[in-house]
C-alpha cells in the first residue's frame, strides 16, 4: 500500500500531479509524480535516510539536488540492468522504479558495520598506507576481504546487459553546454543567426536555476521564461536541443564527448531504442554554460541526513513542490542563500532560523526574515548536530552564547564553485578570483568560451547578458550575421559573500568529503605528515575521488589546507579535472560493437559453400576461414585434419585462399619498384612467370612474403599474407607517394575482386584441366612450376591461373571474379569427384606447410631476418632495396642468431608444443641457457609423428644435434632431434610433377 506524499506541497512546482508514478525503495512502495527525481520523490514521502557512508557506514541522506551528489547513491533496477552508485538526485523517476540502498548490512536502519565508527581513529587518512602491513599473510586472508566488504559502493550487475547502446557523431557551428539562463541565451543568440547550434543539458528539463529559484525575467516567472526560450529554440530548424545529454569531455579539434541517456527515464527502454547513446559532437565553437555548484560549510555532524545544500532545499521546494523537512534552518555566509530561503518560506517551507557567519548582513534581508518570524543569528556558527536523522542543531554566537534548536533540515551554503571542469580538459588550470571567492576558468580549450555562473558571474542579470554575448560572438566569429538581441530585464540581486570554510571549534566529525568520509581532521593529518600540495592531499586522503569527483569538497578541502599552511588559496591552487565530467557507461563507449560485433567479420566467397559442407570456421584477423571439414564418425579435429592432408598428398584437395592480399601493379616502372621493395629481383621476371618474394621493413626485419606474377610487360600481380594485406598495401602506397613519386606505377587492391582457390595433389592437373575452357593449355609445358597465365574457366569466366604450391604437392591457384568463387569450388568438386577430391581447411594447410618447411605468420613475427628464416640467399647483392642496410647490422648477421630448423621428438610418441624453449642437453633451465623456441608444430601424417619448426641458436649448423624442449607452462621436458626444415620431398619432385 502506497503512503501519501506527506511532504508534497499543495501547489506550485514543475511536477505533473496528474501523473502518479509508483516506485519502491528498499522494498517499500511509494508514489511520486512525473517530473520528479528519485530524490525529490523520496523526500516527498518523508524518506530521509537513503544510504550508508563509504568508510564509517554513517547514516546519510540526500545532500544535493544535482550531479554533485556525494551521499544519495543507490542501486537501480535488477538483474542484468542492475546499476550501482546511481545518484538519486539525477535519476528521473519512472513508473515501476525499484531502488535499493547500498553499502549497508543487514539493513539500512541497522548497519552492523557502523561499528567502524568506533575504530575510526584507525581508519583515518592514509590508513591503507600504514596499517595492515603485518603479518603479511593476513592481508589476503583477513584485512582485504574485510575492507572490501566494508568499504564498498554498490554491486555491479552480474548478468549480461540486455539493452543496447549506440555511438553517433554530429557536427555544429556552436555547441552550448548547459541550458540554464546563460546557456539558453547563448543558444538563442547563436540560433537566431542561422548558425547550426546544439544545446545540450544533462537535465530532462531546460532552465537550470530558473526552475529551482524564484525570479522575474521580462515580466515572466523564471521557469516560464525558460520554457518560452526552449520552445523558440525547438522551433528553429538550425537548433537542436539535446536534453538528458551530458557533455563530459573536450577532445582535440573541437570534438566533445557527450552521453545521452535516451531511455533511463523508463523502466525498460522502448523497443529498438538504445539505453544510452555516446555522442561525438564536433563543434567549431562552444560556449560552456555549465553553471556552478554550491559548496558546503564544514562543521561537526554536517553529514547527518537532513543537512542539505541550501540551493537543494530551494530546488526541492520550488521545482518539485517538496518540503525537505518540517523545521528548516539555514547556515550560510552569503546573500543568495538568504533569498532562496525566504522564497522557500513563501512557497510553504517552514523556515525557523537563519544562522550567518557574517556579523553584518544587509538589513533588507534580516528585516524580511524577521517579518516572517524567522529567527536570525548573525556572527554565528552551527557547532554541533544531533540525531541519527537530524533532530537538533547547536548554534553559537558571541551575542547569544550557545543555543539548541529543534531543526530537522539544515540548509547549508558556503558559496558557489563555477563548474570549470571542461575548461581543464586541455590542461587549463582554474584561477582563484578573490572578488567572487571562487576558482574561475583559466586557459580554455581552443574555441571554447565560458558564460554565466561557470565563469564566476553569479547575478542573474549578468548571466543572461553574458550568455547572449558569448552566443552571439561565437556565431559572429564564424561569419554569421548577428541580429540584435534584447536581453530581458531582471531585478538587481546582491551576491555578497564572506568566505568561510570550517567551524574549527565544532564538535564531532566534520566532513569535508562526504563520499569518501574525509574529515577536516584528515586534512590536518595530511598537513602534519607533509602531504600539503593539493595533489598530495587528494591522493593521501582520497579527498575529491570517486563518483562525485569532489564537486562539493575540493574547494573546502584546499581552503582548510590553506588555513593550516598559512598560504592563500590562490597560492595553494587546485587540482584540475580530467574527463569524464560525470560517469559514462562503458556500454555507450562500445556501442553495437560487442560480442561477435566487436569488429566486422569478413566472409570469403566460398563461405556459404563451406558452411554447407559442415566446415568449422576460425577467425583469422577479420576473416572467417574454414578450419577443417569434419565428417561423421571422426573423433576429433586431428583425425579430420590428418584425413584431409592424406587426401591431398595422395590424390587432390582444394582450399579457398581468397583471403591473401592481392595487389595489381601496372605501369612501365613496376619492375624497378618491385626490385626496391623486395630483397630479390623482379624486373627480370619473364611474362607468364611467378616468383616468391620477401620484403623487409626499414629496420631489416622481414615484413611479409608471397608470390608475385608478371601477367604482361607492364602488369604484375602481387600476393601478400592474409594478416599483412592492408599493411603491405599501405607500405607500397607510402613508397610510391613519398619515397619515389617519380615512378610511373599504379597500385590497386584487388583482394576483394578475385576469389582464389588452391588445388593441390598428384591429380591436381587433371582436375584443373576439366574446369578450364578448351583453349586453355595447362600442360606441364604450357604451365610449368611457377607459371602464371590468364584464361577462362567454366565457359567464359575470366581467370588467372598460377602454378604455385604451399603444400609441397603439384598445385595451382585459380583466381576468378569473387562472385564466381563458390561456383568454381563446386565445379572443382565435381571435376575431382572420381578422385575423392577433398576440401581442406587452414589446419591441413598449416600441417602441409610445416611438413614442407615453409615459413608463415608464426615465423614472420617481426623479430626475424631473412637469414633467420633460411631465406638470406634470396637477397640480391646487385641492387638496393628497403631494409638492406639495416639488415646488415652486426647483431642481425650474427651466425649464432636463432634461425630456422626442423625438430622431431627423440621419442616419436611425444607431442610437440609451440612455445617450448630449447635448452642444451644437461644445461640448466634458465634464461642464460635459452637457445630459442618452437614456432610451429604439427602432427605429420606423412611421417606418423609430431614435427616442429623453430628458431634455434646456430640454426642449420646444428642439424643432427639433440636439444631439450622445455615447456614450463605445460610442465613438459623431453629430447628433440634437430633436422633440416623440410620433412617431405626435399628435392621438390612433387611440385614439378
Amino acid at each position, binding site marked *: 500500500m502506497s503512503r501519501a506524499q506527506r511532504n508534497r506541497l499543495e501547489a506550485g512546482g514543475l511536477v505533473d500531479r496528474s501523473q502518479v508514478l509508483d516506485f519502491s525503495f528498499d522494498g517499500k512502495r511509494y508514489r511520486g509524480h512525473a517530473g520528479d527525481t528519485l530524490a525529490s520523490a523520496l523526500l516527498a514521502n518523508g524518506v530521509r535516510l537513503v544510504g550508508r557512508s563509504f568508510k564509517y557506514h554513517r547514516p546519510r541522506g540526500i545532500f544535493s539536488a544535482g550531479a554533485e551528489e556525494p551521499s544519495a547513491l543507490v542501486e537501480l533496477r535488477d538483474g542484468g540492468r542492475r546499476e550501482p552508485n546511481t545518484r538519486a538526485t539525477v535519476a528521473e523517476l519512472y513508473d515501476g522504479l525499484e531502488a535499493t540502498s547500498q553499502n549497508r548490512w543487514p539493513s539500512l536502519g541497522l548497519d552492523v558495520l557502523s561499528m567502524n565508527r568506533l575504530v575510526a581513529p584507525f581508519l583515518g587518512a592514509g590508513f591503507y598506507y600504514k596499517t595492515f602491513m603485518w603479518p603479511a599473510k593476513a592481508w589476503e586472508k583477513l584485512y582485504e576481504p574485510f575492507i572490501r566488504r566494508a568499504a564498498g559502493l554498490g554491486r555491479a550487475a552480474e548478468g549480461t546487459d540486455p539493452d543496447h547502446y549506440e555511438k553517433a557523431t554530429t557536427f555544429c557551428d556552436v555547441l552550448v553546454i548547459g541550458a540554464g539562463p546563460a546557456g539558453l541565451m547563448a543558444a538563442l543568440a547563436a540560433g537566431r543567426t542561422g548558425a547550426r547550434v546544439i544545446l545540450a543539458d544533462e537535465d530532462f528539463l531546460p532552465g537550470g536555476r530558473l526552475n529551482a529559484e524564484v525570479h522575474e525575467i521580462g515580466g515572466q516567472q523564471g521557469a516560464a521564461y525558460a520554457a518560452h526560450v526552449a520552445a523558440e529554440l525547438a522551433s528553429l530548424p538550425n537548433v537542436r536541443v539535446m536534453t538528458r545529454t551530458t557533455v563530459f569531455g573536450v577532445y582535440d579539434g573541437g570534438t566533445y564527448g557527450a552521453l545521452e541517456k535516451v531511455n533511463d527515464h523508463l523502466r525498460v527502454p522502448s*523497443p529498438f531504442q538504445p539505453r544510452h547513446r555516446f555522442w561525438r559532437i564536433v563543434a567549431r565553437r562552444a560556449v560552456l554554460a555549465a553553471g556552478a555548484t554550491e559548496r558546503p560549510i564544514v562543521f561537526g555532524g554536517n553529514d547527518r541526513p537532513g543537512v542539505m545544500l541550501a540551493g537543494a532545499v530551494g530546488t526541492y521546494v520550488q521545482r518539485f513542490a517538496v518540503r525537505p523537512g518540517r523545521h528548516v534552518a539555514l547556515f550560510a555566509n552569503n546573500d543568495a542563500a538568504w533569498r532562496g530561503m525566504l522564497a522557500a518560506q513563501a512557497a510553504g517551507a517552514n523556515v525557523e532560523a537563519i544562522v550567518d557567519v557574517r556579523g553584518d548582513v544587509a538589513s533588507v534581508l534580516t528585516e524580511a526574515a524577521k517579518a516572517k518570524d524567522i529567527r536570525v543569528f548573525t556572527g554565528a556558527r552551527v557547532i554541533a548536530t544531533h540525531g541519527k536523522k537530524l533532530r537538533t542543531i547547536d548554534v553559537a554566537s558571541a551575542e547569544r552564547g550557545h543555543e539548541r534548536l529543534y531543526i530537522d533540515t539544515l540548509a547549508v551554503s558556503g558559496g558557489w564553485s563555477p563548474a570549470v571542469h571542461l575548461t581543464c580538459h586541455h590542461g587549463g588550470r582554474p584561477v582563484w578570483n578573490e572578488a567572487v571567492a571562487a576558482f574561475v576558468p583559466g586557459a580554455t580549450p581552443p574555441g571554447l568560451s565560458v558564460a554565466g555562473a561557470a565563469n564566476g558571474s553569479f547575478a542573474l542579470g549578468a548571466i543572461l547578458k553574458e550568455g547572449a554575448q558569448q552566443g552571439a560572438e561565437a556565431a559572429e566569429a564564424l561569419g554569421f550575421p548577428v541580429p540584435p538581441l534584447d536581453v530581458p530585464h531582471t531585478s538587481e540581486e546582491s551576491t555578497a559573500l564572506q568566505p568561510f570554510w570550517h567551524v574549527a571549534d565544532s564538535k564531532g566529525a566534520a566532513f569535508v568529503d562526504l563520499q569518501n568520509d574525509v574529515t577536516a581532521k584528515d586534512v590536518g593529518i595530511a598537513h602534519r605528515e607533509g602531504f600539503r600540495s593539493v595533489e598530495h592531499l587528494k591522493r593521501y586522503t582520497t579527498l575529491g575521488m570517486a563518483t562525485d569527483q569532489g564537486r562539493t569538497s575540493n574547494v573546502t578541502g584546499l581552503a582548510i589546507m590553506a588555513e593550516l599552511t598559512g598560504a592563500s588559496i590562490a597560492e595553494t591552487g587546485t587540482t584540475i579535472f580530467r574527463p569524464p565530467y560525470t560517469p559514462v557507461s562503458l556500454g555507450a563507449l562500445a556501442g553495437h560493437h560487442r560480442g561477435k560485433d566487436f569488429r566486422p567479420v569478413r566472409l570469403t566467397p566460398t563461405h556459404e559453400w563451406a558452411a554447407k559442407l559442415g566446415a568449422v570456421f576460425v577467425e583469422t584477423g577479420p576473416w572467417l576461414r574454414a578450419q577443417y571439414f569434419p565428417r561423421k564418425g571422426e573423433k576429433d579435429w586431428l583425425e579430420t585434419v590428418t584425413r584431409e592432408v592424406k587426401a591431398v598428398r595422395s590424390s587432390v584437395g582444394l582450399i579457398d585462399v581468397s583471403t591473401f592480399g592481392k595487389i595489381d601493379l601496372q605501369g612501365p616502372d613496376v619492375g624497378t619498384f618491385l626490385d626496391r621493395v623486395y630483397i630479390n629481383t623482379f624486373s627480370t621476371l619473364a611474362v607468364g612467370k611467378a616468383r616468391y618474394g620477401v620484403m623487409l621493413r626499414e629496420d631489416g626485419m622481414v615484413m611479409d612474403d608471397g608470390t608475385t606474377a608478371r601477367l604482361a610487360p607492364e602488369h604484375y600481380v602481387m600476393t601478400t599474407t592474409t594478416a599483412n594485406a592492408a599493411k603491405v598495401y599501405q607500405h607500397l602506397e607510402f613508397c610510391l607517394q613519398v619515397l619515389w613519386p617519380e615512378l610511373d606505377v599504379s597500385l590497386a587492391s584487388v583482394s576483394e575482386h578475385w576469389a582464389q582457390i588452391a588445388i593441390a595433389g598428384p591429380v591436381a592437373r587433371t582436375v584443373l584441366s576439366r574446369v578450364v575452357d578448351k583453349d586453355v593449355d595447362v600442360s606441364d609445358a604450357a604451365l610449368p612450376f611457377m607459371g602464371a597465365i590468364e584464361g577462362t574457366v567454366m565457359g567464359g569466366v575470366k581467370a588467372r591461373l598460377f602454378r604455385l604450391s604451399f603444400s609441397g604437392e603439384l598445385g595451382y591457384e585459380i583466381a576468378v571474379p569473387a562472385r564466381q568463387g563458390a561456383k568454381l569450388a563446386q565445379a572443382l568438386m565435381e571435376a575431382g569427384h572420381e578422385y575423392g577430391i577433398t576440401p581442406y581447411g587452414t589446419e591441413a594447410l598449416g600441417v602441409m606447410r610445416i611438413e614442407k618447411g615453409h615459413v608463415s605468420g608464426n615465423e614472420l613475427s617481426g623479430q626475424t631476418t631473412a637469414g633467420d628464416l633460411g631465406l638470406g640467399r634470396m637477397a640480391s647483392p646487385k641492387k638496393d632495396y628497403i631494409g638492406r642496410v639495416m639488415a646488415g647490422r652486426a647483431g642481425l648477421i650474427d651466425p649464432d642468431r636463432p634461425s630456422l630448423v626442423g625438430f622431431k621428438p627423440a621419442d616419436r610418441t611425444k607431442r610437440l608444443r609451440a612455445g617450448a624453449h630449447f635448452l642444451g642437453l644437461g644445461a640448466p633451465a634458465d634464461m642464460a641457457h635459452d637457445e630459442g623456441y618452437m614456432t610451429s608444430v604439427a602432427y605429420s601424417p606423412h611421417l606418423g609423428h609430431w614435427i616442429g619448426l623453430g628458431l634455434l641458436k646456430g640454426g642449420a649448423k646444428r642439424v643432427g644435434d639433440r636439444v631439450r624442449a622445455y615447456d614450463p607452462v605445460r610442465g613438459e621436458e623431453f629430447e628433440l632431434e634437430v633436422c633440416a626444415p623440410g620433412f617431405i620431398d626435399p628435392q621438390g619432385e612433387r611440385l614439378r610433377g
Partner: protein
Amino acid sequence: MADRSSHDPLAGIAFDRLPPAGAYGAPGEPGVVASTAEPFVALVLARPGKAASVVDRLHRAFSVALADRPHAAIEGNTTVIGTAPGRFLVLSRTDADLFGTLRAILGTDATVTEQSDGYVTFDVTGDRVSDVLAKGALIDLDPVAFHVGDAVTTVIAHIGVTLWRSGEKSWRVLVGRSYEASFTRFLIASAAEYGLRLENKGSEGRG
C-alpha cells in the same frame, strides 16, 4: 545468439550470414529503406601528369562533370566518383564490359582495374538516412553540409566505405564484398529505432 536479448536489434541474426531481406526494427513505415546492388565497377588511376586529360576524356564519354574534390558525378547509368587526385571509381548499371570501355576511352592516360566483384553498393533512402549514417561515419553528413553529389571515403563501424549523396533523400554506400553482412548488421542496428526495410537482391542481378 546467446548474449543478445530481444531488446537488441541484432538478436537472433546470425553474425556470419547475410541477413535476409525484410523489415527490421520499429514497425510501421520504415524510416530507412536499403537495397543492395552489384554494379559493374572499375578503378581508374591517371598516369603521372594525365589527371586533367582523364577528367576531360571521362567528361566527353559520359557527360559527367568532375569537380576537383571528393565528388560523385551521376549521369544516366554511369556514376564517376573522384576519391583522390587522379583516382576515379566508375560504376555502371549496364555496361558488362566497363573495363574494356574505359580502356578504349582512356588509352594510355590511365590504368584501369576491374573491380566489379569487389564491391556491393547499398542504396539507402528515407528521411532518417543521415541519422543512421551518423551512427557510423565521423563525417558531417547533415543535409545542409553534405550536398547531393558530395562523396567521401571513410570508415563506418570499422568498415572502409565510399559513400555519396545521390539525391535529396537518397545515399549510396560502396562496401567491400566480404563486408556485406557486417555492413548490413550496422544498418539493422543503427536504423532499428526508425525501422528498416532491407531489400536484398543477393547476387542475382546487376543493379
